[in-house]
């Protein structure tokens, strides 16, 4: 589950010293369950004893919700219900040292509280928003989704949505395909570890193969996407081939190139 190849725009003749590009990648998330760096180190050693090269210098993101409680972000903005995070006394630096000693490479903290964010900054770690997406039950802004949006299917059984996916809503089909019986509107986002089938216009974002499945595809009845991605390789709206805009289409990976084809 390493970083995925990003879509490369055409190289220009003049190459500046610096170029910005996008990349979607997946991290292993390490959830810390005990506020005790020594215990974390021991647990890590036990894991490594079983599978020695499991995490060799693997970049990992830390989830501290097990020891600090949920941060307010997981409750959602704007609903007036705020749960203050009460970080445990353990220092982030001690935890990071224990993980590094075990061969992990912590690079970020998921949804940190303000105090944890300051600690992370001091340690040179990034703060990731939306770390809750792994255990996702609704949108990025924390809305509880409707009944139809919420269930995360059992492995192998597709997640079927009978409502439009509207702006601001995010749906994640964990470990399976997503089937949307309606439109995905601008600002809406469907993420699936498998394929994404949209029986309607795709006007928002569709990210298939979110955990690196190179065989995953996106199918839609009308391609008007803001972004489509397979296993981290993505195309933005203006990169979609003109003949397929507004047409039924499928999107898949051919080697490292994202291809749009007839449905």
């Amino acid at each position, binding site marked *: 589950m390493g970083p995925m190849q990003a879509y490369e725009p055409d190289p220009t003749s003049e190459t500046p010293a610096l170029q910005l590009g996008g990349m979607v990648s997946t991290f292993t998330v390490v959830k810390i369950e005990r506020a005790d760096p020594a215990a974390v180190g021991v647990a890590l050693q036990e894991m490594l004893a079983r599978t020695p090269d499991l995490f060799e210098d693997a970049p990992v993101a830390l989830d501290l919700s097990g020891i600090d409680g949920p941060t307010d972000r997981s409750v959602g903005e704007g609903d*007036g219900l705020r749960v203050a995070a009460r970080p445990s006394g353990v220092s982030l630096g001690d935890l990071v040292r224990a993980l590094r000693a075990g061969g992990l490479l912590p690079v970020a903290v998921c949804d940190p509280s303000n105090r944890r964010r300051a600690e992370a900054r001091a340690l040179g770690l990034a703060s990731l928003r939306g770390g809750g997406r792994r255990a996702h039950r609704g949108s990025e802004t924390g809305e509880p989704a*409707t009944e139809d949006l919420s269930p995360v299917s059992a492995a192998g059984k597709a997640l079927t949505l009978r*409502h*439009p996916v509207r*702006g*601001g809503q995010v749906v994640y089909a964990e470990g399976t395909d997503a089937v949307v019986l309606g439109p995905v509107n601008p600002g809406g986002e469907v993420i699936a570890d498998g394929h994404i089938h949209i029986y309607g216009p795709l006007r928002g974002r569709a990210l298939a193969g979110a955990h690196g499945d190179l065989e995953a595809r996106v199918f839609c009845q009308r391609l008007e996407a803001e972004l489509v991605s397979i296993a981290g390789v993505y195309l933005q709206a203006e990169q979609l081939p003109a003949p397929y805009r507004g047409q039924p289409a499928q999107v898949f990976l051919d080697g490292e190139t994202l291809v749009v084809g007839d449905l």
Partner: protein
Amino acid sequence: MAKVIVVTSGKGGVGKTTTSASIAAGMALEGYKTVAIDFDVGLRNLDLVMGCERRVVYDLVSVVKGEASLRQALIRDKRVENLHILPASQTRDKEALDLEGVGRVVKELGTMGFDYVVCDSPAGIEKGAQLAMYYADEAIVVTNPEVSSVRDSDRILGLLDAKTQRAIEGREPIKTHLLVTRYSPARAASGEMLSVDDILELLGIELLGVIPESQAVLNASNQGAPVVLESETDAGGAYLDVVKRFVGEALPHRFLEPEKRGFFSRFFSPSPRSAFAG
């Protein structure tokens, strides 16, 4: 049991308060005992549009806080029988409202024999807007024919599907209606604004009505009278249609097509067909 209607949009300035005032007044004209509640705590516009700003003593916040009874706070409209207004507070903190308190107010309005409770939502998607929609049975989503307004309405429709009591309790989903306001068929036809079809295509909900862009709305608002009371005007007539459709009358939609050109304009700029006829 009162039916609770929220008038909402996401975007500000699209005509929520104008619509709330006219829907509530129109329902009352049709004989239903109706109350309009202003949820825009801190701004207080509904009482102005309805022309009762001088009669405000208590408000929604004072009722929720238990400082006044509902009967004390309700203002009875002087023009239309059956029409009542529960104003917002201009001076109170909007944090003063909470779900439980609003729930008590809505329930008590039901026991007082109201047929319709019209909730005028503040703009945005934050707490105030979510409080206004929470207890709703039906929603009127107000949209202007421009992209940002339509996108915001889409966002609000997502919240209506997820953040209302009906959604949370897994009951029958809230019924959503689209109201397009400030519409100019001629400008839509020439591509200067989105057409009703464009809007319906994206939002995919039932069209309740189209209110034409009209000077009558501004005039009525300045006079403190819901425009629906001036039903001889284009916008007033359109709102009366909307109310009648809402309560079940099948009326054809109006203001979808540009007005037919008059005799003189035809005379001075002949249509292509008459040019070929000679």
